């Protein structure tokens, strides 16, 4: 094609870049390094075969992943992408452990946060009951007159029920 420069692959392979060159859309001439890497690891004919087997709308993603893999293999000739996978899997395991620790911590904090015995402030549902509460607190002796303390226990358990703790069996 007159006036059109060959794509990076055809330039490297020293061939004529035709109108329907399969590489041209994905390996523009302004980025020759991209094709050099892919060609070095996978080979031009393998890449061409792989792209031909894919529908056109998936080829761009395929090229991106091939370039990624090729770069990884160049950086690490022994493990390539597998090295990255192994590293990331270790990170995931570590983070999962950290998450488990933090979740256990929040359970402990929640248990500490929920009071077992309601505070006097919580007993005062109605501001008008302040007087009765005052009287109760200053006439605690009336509870001591009962033969057993079972009513005291019952009362405290009933107060627990107000707050949703079902301690009365």
């Amino acid at each position, binding site marked *: 094609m007159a006036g059109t420069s060959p794509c990076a692959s055809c330039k490297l392979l020293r061939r004529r870049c035709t109108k329907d060159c399969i590489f041209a859309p994905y390996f523009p001439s302004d980025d020759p390094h991209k094709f050099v890497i892919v060609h070095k690891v996978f*080979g031009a004919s*393998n890449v061409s075969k792989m792209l031909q087997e894919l529908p056109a709308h998936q080829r761009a993603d*395929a090229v991106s992943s091939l370039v990624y893999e090729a770069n990884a293999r160049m950086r690490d000739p*022994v493990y390539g992408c597998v090295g990255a996978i192994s590293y*990331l899997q270790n990170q995931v395991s570590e983070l999962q452990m950290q998450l488990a620790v933090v979740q256990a911590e929040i359970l402990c904090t929640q248990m500490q946060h929920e009071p077992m015995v309601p505070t006097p402030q919580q007993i005062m549902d109605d501001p008008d009951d302040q007087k009765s509460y005052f009287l109760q607190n200053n006439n605690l002796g009336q509870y001591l007159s009962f033969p057993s303390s079972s009513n005291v226990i019952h009362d405290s358990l009933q107060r627990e029920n107000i707050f949703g703790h079902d301690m009365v069996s």
Partner: protein
Amino acid sequence: MISNNPTRCAACRFLRRRCPQDCVLAPYFPSSNPERFACVHKIFGAGNITKMLEQLPVHLREAAADSMFYEASLRVEDPVYGCVRIISQLQHHILEAQSEILKTNGQIASYIAQQQLQQQQQNVVDGASYQQDMQISEYLGVGSDVQTLANDSYFHP
């Protein structure tokens, strides 16, 4: 004269060539597993595999061959993304876990702050009740210990 391997390796069998004694691929692509070489050859090509292995010291070649087979099989399974899909998923899991840890740490900090606030409020209430008790004692003109004895005698004649 280079002698040949009595049994050709999977690579030489696939490529229909003689398998020399010093065949680079033979140790890693035994004839017992022809699919392994077929898979790697489909993605990388025999020439590239040989070049890549030759550039590595011998003690690292087995690991390299294994990782190439792993990558090739993932690419055969997923021709668009290959092993990059797994990398992407792992990165996503990492972000999720980090976010969850941050969120949980935030919740812990919030609970602790609430606890501290409740404790402060409780201290104020206790302080106020104490002051009321003291005022009553002063009004009655008795100390708290004398009041207790008085109560006892009232309820226990």
